[in-house]
């Protein structure tokens, strides 16, 4: 029972379209110029226009969390944001976590604890955990549960997702 719908705050945006319009997206620190229809969601822009298919779509209506990315550091459902709304803001996706071929501690912890089965919800879970740990390096089990309560996992990897998040917090605190 998803409880925590994370939707971006509505901002005033200039009227664009109809038809494709140019926008600039800053994804994982890189700026991309693309041409999208105003109705294109951030999720589809990432996946289809930028080829960043790590972020998944399982509902397209803000009910599953598979599409979770960070917008200015806060977790959002990328299917619930228009690409236009995210122009000029910092977008972080699962592809941006590993650096120089080295996994981020959250990713390493997910593997070690086996916090995934089919792996389809995993990028979203990882981004929700990332948002939590960025804000709270020392979370309790309850904090973790709440942080991922908007991310469904049909395979039922939850117990191990909790463990992985706590282990990742430990790894990050110890600076590894």
């Amino acid at each position, binding site marked *: *029972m*998803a*409880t925590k719908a994370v939707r971006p705050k509505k901002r005033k945006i200039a009227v664009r379209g109809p038809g494709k319009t140019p926008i600039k997206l800053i994804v994982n620190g890189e700026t991309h110029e693309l041409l999208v*229809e105003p*109705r*294109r969601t951030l999720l*589809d822009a990432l*996946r*289809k226009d930028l*080829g*960043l*298919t*790590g*972020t*998944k*779509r*399982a*509902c*397209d*209506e803000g*009910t*599953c969390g*598979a599409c979770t990315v960070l917008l200015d550091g806060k977790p959002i459902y990328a299917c619930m944001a228009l690409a236009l709304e995210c122009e000029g803001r910092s977008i972080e*996706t*699962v*592809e941006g*976590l*590993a650096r120089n071929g080295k*996994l981020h501690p959250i*990713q390493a912890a*997910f*593997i*070690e604890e*086996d916090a*995934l*089965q*089919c*792996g*389809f*919800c*995993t*990028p979203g879970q*990882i981004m929700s955990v990332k948002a939590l740990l960025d804000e709270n390096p020392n979370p309790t089990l309850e904090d*973790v*549960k*709440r942080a*991922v*309560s908007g*991310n*469904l*996992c*049909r*395979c*039922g*990897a*939850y*117990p*191990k*997702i*909790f463990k992985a998040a706590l282990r990742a917090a430990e790894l990050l605190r110890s600076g590894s």
Partner: protein
Amino acid sequence: MPKVIKTRTEFEGHVFEEYVVVEGEGLSAWDAQTPLRYIGRQIPRTDGPERVTGKAVYTFDVQLPGMLYGKILRSPHPHARIKSINTQRAERLPGVRAVLSFKNAPKLSFRQGQTFLFDEIVRYVGDEVACVIADEEEIAEDALELIEVEYERLPFVLDPEEALRPEAPNVQPSGNLLNGKPDIYERGDLDRGFSQADLIVERTFRTQCALHNCLETHGSVALWEGDALTVWDSTQHIFGVRAGLAQLLGLPLHKVRVIKRYMGGGFGSKNGLGKYTVIAALGAKATGRPVKIMLDRHEENLAAGNRPSTIQHLKVGARRDGTLTALELKAIVNAGAFCTWPPSVGGPARQLYLCPNVKTEQYTVFTNTGPLSAFRAPGYVEGTFALESLMDELAHELKIDPLELRLKNYAEIDQTTGRPYSTKGLREAYERGAKLFGWKALTSNPSPVAHLRERGGAVGERATKLRGVGMASQIWSGNGMPPAYAIVKINPDGTATVVTGTQDIGTGTKTVLAQIAAEELGFPIEKISVEIGDTQLGLYAPLSAGSMTVASVGPAVRLAAHEARQQLLDVAAQVLEVPRESLAICDGLLSSPALKEAVAIKDVLEKLENFMIIGRGAREPNPEDVAVNTFGAQFAEVTVDTETGEVKVERIVAVHDSGRVINPLTLSSQIEGGIIQGLGYALFEQRVVDRNTGVVVNDNLENYKLPTALDIPEIVFEMVDRPDHRANNLGAKGVGEPPIIPTAAAIANAVANALGIRIYELPLTREKILKALKRV
């Protein structure tokens, strides 16, 4: 020379005989003395890095140059004839490349003739009517709204009991009962059995329709290159999809390739060829461009299968001491509009307990609702809920401890065949589970409910929380079966590649196969890669269902690795000029007392230029004289809030026996996952169909309630972990389905224990709890 023999196999409660070709020598399962480096070890998933970085390419992620998107128009009516369909306006929309419907698509028979790819009769809300192929998904969606369809509405029936009445409208031309008759099993003499009983308990149980909701929806990408078709499909059976496509499209097998690299869950719903796959192939043919069709969440919940609802009339007779004398089940299953593989709801009644007189009768009924499909232990989850609930009632009536009653009726042999079980660790599972759970202490008080009642406040105040405990047991196949083939190639650099045509549906198959090969070869696991999920690899493996992947494919991989190792030893002995028997392989190094120091395999093979070792393996037949099954027991503790009706599962203790454990880490994920799905099924999952329109009102994740992070109880589990030497050369059996089987039953028993009242219908919603407590 290859030998053709007949073997008996069991798949999801259905037993059948088939021919298999066996070649080569068998291997026996490792004994307790063999030191094992990889088998039984916690090895993290070898494909973990791809999955956590977003690099793993699921079918949903496949994007080909020039790729178009298909969107399917679905019937808004539960039963109708399409009088006319006008696609002109849709076709004229810029960006639309093709519109397919029964008017221009070939009339292809589907589901054994129960429907056509595009049928002129639609039989449920969500049935396929037409498909738009367009440059973008959004355009295809726009175009769907421009298709004009005139329907002649037909009378419909949604309820399976109503559908059985003579005056009910026919969903299928041949009538509403699958095969025109019930599926009946009988042993002993039922009347005599009931006449010998001191007590007869009879109840009617109902279970709901549950939706799989795999996070990756069903879908395919189709690409034609000349007259050859390649399809990426989110499927549990690449070879089945290949065979189905070839047959429907009139293609030879070598012109069809099916690929499934990663998939976002299946749970049984992706066992066969879907209409969307064929439509994608036709659309790609018509447009000359690759076509992708992924169902959206709503379509997924209408048209991609479900665990069907059941009505089960169950009657049990027992002597005063608890000995069962007779068991009778009459089950009605709501198949939906089509069904070719009915679940076996009577399986648990036939197999779980020792009982000489048993009859099960199953009516699988067509209705104008979305069609069923296999769903993790189909039939057994439903059947176990009823049987294990009734066993608890019987125990209550007879004033016997529920666990004791089960032990009293313990079956040492498979009563459907008369064969002894190869191994059966259920007694141990009961004992270990009871101990872990503290069953005795929690149930010792003569009135467990009062004993466990938690006071809501000061003494004398009305309690608002009731606590209860319950348990249930599980039987399932999980034996695996031939045919399954593998090869193991040893490359000149001392690495090895396992090749087989199975698929990893999220269970960790790749990792487990790498462990098996590494163990048998004596190579470090990092030197093993596993190639699966592509029919072009050429090595058949069965569908990944029925908890049978490891037990079917694993033994073939071990045999292939064994043969590769033999070849390696032959070659190495000659190159190194040492006696073959003196050579050993460990950690990728060749050693022999005749050698000064160990030699890397690479150093031997590289002397032979590009020589390559290829070992072949085929799954052996199943044993003829024993029954190979999996078992388990689960214990649940719940609290029920008497004010809100909310059930909270506090704790689940599970002990299962699936033979040898190959990877405790990935196995534990499957156990937890099964229990969590079972919890959702017990408490809140339920498809709701509007009685007046046949519309599914909760075909989304907002209103169809899946378990979330906040619903997860404490889960404690252990495996009996004893190799089954008769099962196959690994001693391992399946574990994918067993853990979901007893969970709902155990929770329901715990809730009945808490309330002192039993609810005979799943899910145990707040409304039902409050009703039972007479609070609404």
